[in-house]
């Protein structure tokens, strides 16, 4: 690694070969406005707001892709930069419908932030060239308002990585291109919501369901029961000014109570059920000498990807339902009986880091006796809105423990589900113990905790060598599938998460996200695991009780915990006026 100094605004800073000027500036807290830049994407250099002056260069340069050179002298604040920034900012602002007050993304819009920082006031000299544009909704998950699009192409670039060929694509028009959903039968949205996470403005957002939940909370005939995903506990704090990675599980319990929840469950509890079932499936597979891969199926975007783009792998998906679906089923069929409440009087709301979960709950095959296990999904961001609109400040609220008598104890194994590799690690803990009769000496696998797209692990259990992998981001999934096509028995078990780093950077999570934030959220989950006195799913006392009392019967277990998958046709694209 070659290190040298560069000068920014006359000051000397250390940089290394291969760094971009924008990254160096960011590291040293030198402000350069950057709208379309995202660490996941090769800089597209389209917004032209991060321009800098380099001594000796004729033109201003986009700092997002400008490589450092020894002794290079960069200026970020010359009059020309200020002047062009203001003009380009106005041009961008004028090309999108700036209805900020009613915009769903007014609290996480990079453009609006910039406009406020720069005290920019629109002169009004440009007419809106995108009014009366149709709006779209992809399945039940994602809203797309092209009138707010600034043509940066971040969404289409990440979408090409997250699907085969891309669902969101630039469509050419007479004078301009417009990013549009593909109408081709072989391209579809997997609802991962990464387009939202990479959209610097308000063009993409989740299809919001929280207003319906708000209404139901006021309806006394319904018992609104909440559950929240593992990945929420280290991210929701960001919406209230807390640091990424801060564990706020007990604040979430208390905030939901204050909001009027009848009961609050932690989805981590059901993650333990998922582990119990998955490890059983894996053990049976291995004992039967079936060395073909078993894929996790708790990520609904990944499942949609398989069903639509790679149906030949459907048979390799574990039949175990995702934790939130299992929990919904348990709430309505187990807990409800104990509480003497009719399932239809219960509304289960899941707070998820995910937009694809909105699609998952619409799967008919998940119904139990005609009833959906889960009624509504709200994202982490929607949850923050719900709290803010009820004047509940998560940061200030006290910590409380779960008041559940059953299904209240959750393990660290369940909590790490939110980080890529967490499901795998939890499954290994239980599988090892079931096969050997003793717990792993070290419950943590450093190579799985690492922040990488593909993580591999080999383990010898009872003399049998098992091969595992954890993969996140569909671009990496494609690579894993290539490897498996080459060698169908390369892995025994692979955990797949569609979003980079797992649910901690899901499409419903607070914005912005970058690798530092992702690492902090993951580390928070691993810390929560270490701080939890229960760290193995099969040792969770409430799980033991659940299996004794309710899941002992095979038919019940099958009904509550298992499902099936099928080749899927293109989903619904709604066009809204």
């Amino acid at each position, binding site marked *: 690694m070659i290190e040298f100094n560069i000068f920014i605004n006359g000051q000397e800073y250390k940089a290394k070969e291969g760094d971009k000027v924008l990254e160096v500036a960011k590291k040293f807290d030198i402000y350069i406005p950057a709208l379309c830049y995202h660490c996941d994407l090769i800089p597209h250099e389209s917004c032209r707001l991060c321009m800098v002056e380099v001594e000796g260069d004729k033109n201003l340069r986009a700092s997002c892709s400008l490589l450092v050179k020894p002794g290079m002298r960069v200026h970020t604040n010359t009059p020309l930069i200020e002047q*062009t920034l203001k003009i380009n900012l106005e041009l961008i602002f004028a090309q999108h419908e700036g209805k900020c007050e009613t915009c769903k993304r007014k609290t996480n819009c990079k453009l609006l932030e910039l406009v406020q920082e720069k005290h920019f006031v629109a002169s009004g000299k440009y007419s809106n060239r995108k009014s009366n544009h149709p709006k779209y909704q992809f399945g039940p998950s994602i809203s797309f308002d092209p009138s707010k699009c600034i*043509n940066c192409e971040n969404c289409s670039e990440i979408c090409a990585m997250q699907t085969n060929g891309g669902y969101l694509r630039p469509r050419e028009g007479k004078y*301009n*291109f417009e990013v549009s959903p593909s109408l081709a039968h072989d391209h579809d949205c997997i609802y991962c919501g990464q387009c939202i996470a990479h959209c610097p403005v308000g063009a993409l957002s989740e299809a919001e369901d929280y207003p319906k939940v708000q209404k139901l909370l006021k309806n006394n005939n319904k018992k609104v029961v909440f559950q929240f995903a593992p990945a929420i506990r280290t991210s929701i704090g960001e919406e209230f000014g807390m640091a990424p990675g801060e564990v706020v599980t007990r604040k979430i319990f208390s905030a939901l109570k204050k909001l009027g929840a009848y009961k609050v469950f932690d989805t981590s509890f059901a993650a333990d059920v998922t582990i119990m079932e998955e490890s059983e499936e894996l053990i049976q597979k291995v004992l039967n000498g079936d060395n073909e891969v078993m894929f996790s199926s708790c990520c609904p975007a990944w499942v949609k990807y398989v069903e639509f783009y790679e149906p030949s792998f459907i048979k390799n998906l574990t039949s175990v339902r995702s934790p939130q679906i299992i929990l919904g089923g348990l709430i309505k069929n187990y807990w409800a009986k104990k509480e003497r409440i009719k399932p239809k009087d219960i509304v289960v709301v899941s707070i998820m880091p995910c937009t694809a979960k909105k699609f998952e709950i619409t799967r008919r095959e998940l119904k139990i006796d005609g009833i959906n296990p889960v009624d509504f999904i709200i994202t982490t961001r929607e949850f923050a809105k719900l709290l803010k609109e009820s004047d509940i400040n998560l940061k200030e609220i006290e910590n409380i423990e779960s008041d559940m008598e059953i299904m209240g104890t959750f393990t660290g194994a369940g909590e790490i589900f939110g980080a890529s590799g967490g499901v795998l690690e939890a499954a290994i803990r239980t599988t090892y113990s079931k096969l050997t009769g003793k717990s792993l000496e070290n419950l943590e696998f450093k190579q799985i905790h690492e922040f990488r797209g593909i993580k591999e692990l080999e383990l010898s259990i009872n003399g049998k060598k098992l091969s595992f992998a954890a993969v996140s981001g569909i671009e990496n999934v494609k690579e894993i599938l290539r490897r498996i096509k080459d060698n169908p028995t390369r892995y025994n078990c692979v955990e797949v998460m569609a979003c980079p780093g797992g649910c901690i950077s899901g499409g419903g999570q607070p914005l912005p996200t970058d690798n530092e934030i992702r690492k902090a959220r993951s580390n928070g989950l691993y810390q929560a695991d270490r701080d939890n006195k229960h760290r193995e799913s099969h040792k969770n006392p409430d799980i033991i009780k659940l299996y004794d009392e309710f899941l002992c019967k095979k038919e019940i277990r099958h009904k509550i915990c298992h499902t099936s998958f099928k080749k899927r046709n293109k989903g619904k694209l709604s066009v809204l006026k």
Partner: protein
Amino acid sequence: MEQDIILKMKEANLLGRGGALFPTWMKWDGVKKQEGKKIYIIANGSEGEPAVFKDEHILKNHPKEFIEGIKIALETFSGSEAIIYLNHIYFDKYKKNLEKYSDGSKITYFRKTARYIAGDETALMSHIEGKRDEPRSKPPYPAESGLYGLPTLVNNIETYYRISEIASDKYTGKIFYSISGDVKQKGVFDLPVSLSIEEVLKTTGSYPNFEFFIQYGGGAAGAIYLPNELKAPILGAASIIIYNRKKTDLFKLMERWATFYAAENCDKCTPCRESSNRILEMVRKRKLDIENLRELFLVLENTSFCPLGRGMSVPYKTLIDKVMKS
């Protein structure tokens, strides 16, 4: 012969005929350094600029010499193959005839269906690869990482023609001029690079006997020159359009440019995408807001991603300053 062709180009001071005037030998030298990998040789025949039609002249009249230039490149770079990139009209019109000369060589043809910007050497690669026709960041330069990430040499059709001249010691420093507009005879003329605009017009019998101005350097990107400025030497794309001052509707002329830019740019970067739209709006209203235009020109010139955007202000600026003010 293959060994010293690069040296011969250097001695002849051959500059690229696509309009950017980059020394051709330097491009070749850069690609030569990459030998060992597969190398792509591309002949850029997109010729999308209005009032430039000299590549068609070559395709029609000198196909043998043009193909000869490509063959020299194929011989110069081991492990290379060539693609002749033609706009769809030229492709449909000339491919058959060109094949008479290219058959048996590692030469294939690509039919360009994308817009003007896909004549840019990096946007062209994106187009061939089936991606959106947007120019790419440099570095990496095409010589290192071009088409499909492999070393790539891109030269204009005329450049290959001139290389074949150089190889057979027939090069005398000429360039093809496209002359059009209010002239008796629109045409392509093979004349020395060293001539001034005035000399070109006089030599070809195109010098007007009426009040006029010209656009030099292409029918969109070219600058406006007044009769008293024609001593200037030739730079850039050798295209001259003559406008009869009295008969020319200046707003119509600007609307032509504005329509061209709005439709033919790639729309990737803010200044170019938005300014091209806003300028078109403005000229359609037949009312120029000079202060606003200056703002747009400033961001175009200083913050555009590629030369198309950086040069977009030239025709408007020169027309406004030189013709509209007088």
